């Protein structure tokens, strides 16, 4: 480069990335080969830590398992970006894979050869508080009453997913209709809807859930409806704000000029446009509702035993928490991963579908 300072020096050009030395670049040069090597090493390490070292239940086992998982992740990352290109988003696809596994497991829970996870009287002969051992009849261990944790997790997933998804679907249906109508009509309708929305948002959510659960006995249906009521004001606000953006656009004006009716404008012009950003927010809300349901059943205020839910499994594990932490942490990890992956998918969907996010 010459020493003369020209105009180009002040143009805001993207600075070319510094040539990166170090481990990462070396690995990426032969991404597929190194990826497969790391996958093999990680897989062997995980197998070894889970199988051979089952007897030693100490810190080395967990450290080895963690290192093996990191190896697996890095290896998978290298291999996939070598095969599918550098823009391949491994985190997103792993999230999708986890959700498919959870949904599939929940759907097939009745068919799979699982040990007893509901009826204590049928689990009298099972070992209690057995540690997770992937190669036994209780892959994720048993709780203090000998009930199978894997079975509990899959049946619990049914409750969590039904309540989370159901509440959001109801919330979207009602909230989007009210929000789009309010944003389209403006005037008095808008005022009334906004006032009701503000009042509903003023109510602390957990307190509302506690009160509703006290009033009606907690079943899947009541918890789902209570959560749907909580979802409605948020969706009203979201779809109203999006409607205000779209209502200014030319295609709505054109529709009006062509003499389309109000109802037809709402259904054919506004709803299809508002639906995508609203749906992308829906993923995040499903995650929040799975947490809400788990919190309620942790407090004993949602679906109760003998039906296992993630929340009441964790609550049951509290008794021997100090000596048997796996009874809490196995369902806890599943709950965490599900919420994490839903958030991850939701963020990605929002980045793609929400026009307000896309601008930033």
């Amino acid at each position, binding site marked *: 480069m010459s020493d003369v300072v020209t105009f180009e020096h002040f143009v805001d050009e993207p600075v070319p990335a510094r040539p990166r030395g170090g481990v990462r670049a070396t690995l990426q040069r032969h991404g597929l080969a190194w990826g497969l090597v790391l996958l093999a090493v990680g897989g062997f390490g995980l197998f070894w830590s889970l199988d051979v070292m089952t007897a030693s239940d100490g*810190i080395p086992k967990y450290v080895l398992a963690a290192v093996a998982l990191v190896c697996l992740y890095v290896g998978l990352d290298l291999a996939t970006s070598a095969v599918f290109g550098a823009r391949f988003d491994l985190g997103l696809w792993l999230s999708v894979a986890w959700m498919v596994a959870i949904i599939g497991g929940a759907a097939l829970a009745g068919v799979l050869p699982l040990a007893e996870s509901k009826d204590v009287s049928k689990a009298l002969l099972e070992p209690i508080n057995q540690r997770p051992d992937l190669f036994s009849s209780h892959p994720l261990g048993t709780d203090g009453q000998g009930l199978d944790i894997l079975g509990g997790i899959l049946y619990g997933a049914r409750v969590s997913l039904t309540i989370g998804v159901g509440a959001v679907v109801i919330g979207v249906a009602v909230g989007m209709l009210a929000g789009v109508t309010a944003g389209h009509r403006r005037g008095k309708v808008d005022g009334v809807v906004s*006032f*009701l929305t*503000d*009042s509903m948002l*003023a*109510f*602390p*959510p*957990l*307190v*509302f859930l*506690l*009160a*509703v*659960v*006290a*009033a*009606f006995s907690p079943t899947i249906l009541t918890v789902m409806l209570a959560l749907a009521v909580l979802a409605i004001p948020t969706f009203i606000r979201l779809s109203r704000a999006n409607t205000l953006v779209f209502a200014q656009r030319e295609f709505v004006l054109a529709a009006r000029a062509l003499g389309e009716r109000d109802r037809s404008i709402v259904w054919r012009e506004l709803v299809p446009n508002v639906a995508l950003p609203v749906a992308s927010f829906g993923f995040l809300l499903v*995650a929040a509702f799975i*947490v809400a349901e*788990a*919190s309620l059943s*942790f*407090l004993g*205020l949602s679906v109760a035993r003998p039906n296992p839910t993630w*929340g009441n499994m*964790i609550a049951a594990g*509290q008794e021997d*928490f*100090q000596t048997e*932490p796996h009874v*809490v*942490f196995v369902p*806890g990890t599943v*709950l*965490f991963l599900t*919420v*994490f992956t839903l*958030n*991850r998918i939701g963020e990605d969907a929002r980045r793609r579908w929400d026009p307000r996010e896309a601008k*930033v």
Partner: protein
Amino acid sequence: MVGLKLAYLVPVMFVVSLATFFILEAVPGDPAVTVAGVNADPEIVAEIRAELGLDQPVIERYFDWLGGVMTGDLGRQLLEPRLPVSTVIKAALPVTLELAGLALVMALLAAIPAALVAASRPGNAPDRALSTSAFAVIAIPSFLMALLLIFLFIFNQGLAQALLFAIALIGACYLANRIWRAAKRYPPGSKAPYLIRRVVALVGGLAVATVLILMMPEFPRQGFVRLSADEGVGENLKSAFLPALTLASIEAAVWMRLLRGDLVATLQEDFILASRAKGMPRWRILTHDALRPSLFSLITVLGVSIGRLIGGTVIVEQIFNLPGLGSLMVRSIQAKDVPVVQAAVLLIAAIYVIVNAVVDVAYVYLDPRIRRGRV
């Protein structure tokens, strides 16, 4: 405009009080039976119904109750020892407020520096580490976080200390590498005092962190030492630390992500370019120029967060067995002690609404564009 905002609160609170009353009205079971006991004489039950005013129509009872609330008379507990509801709530409220306040302070102390570090060089290792951990922490439900902290800080304190020390060590190694690279970039000796200062700061920081980690006190598994108790502030803080940390961790993660995003956007503005052109150091630009205009959405969210903190103490108080508003509410709901639940719900809703209104008003004062009505 401020007056209008505050006037708007009155109808909202009215609707909230209406909802509180009628949701709990739908609770099955007769409060009079709760008072008298299940096997009581029907005559006694009828007497108690009359005494509690339950024989009157619902609407009349609502306005009776509302009138009582207005004059500060919240009735009495249905269960023994049948204290006035206001006494029960007065005992519980300070615990919840202290938890929420402590969590707020802790979350702010964590979120703002973390966001500054992450935004200072977007996309580098500290940013990715902080953003990923914030994203992970958001996905941990508060009851799980509480159990995790109990497991680490109470049952396996050695493990917690080892983990914290490992994090400090990794951070120190990263900084040492940065200093080493900076040292290589300059000709020998030209920046020596500056580099020596940084090395001393790094070693000193690591030493302080190590001492703090080693000095970690033993936290109680449950229970609460009140500020007014004889044990003093230290014991009080010790018993409130883990519950407050549980609440703070999730709020801090949300705030950090929000503030980081706003900071990154602000750093693209022209006045930042001007500051950089003047040769201002990166840290000064971040703290003096970029922080203030980036704080507005954090302040907006703060209102929602305070409401969530006060509502969210329900679970934490249950797990750590603290005598706050949340555990009072859960206990009263399970015992169908309606007057206590009504009063507690109304109080929490009132705090929530008022905090949000205060935030709206504060926003008006902080942002000159809104103050002058130009939006």
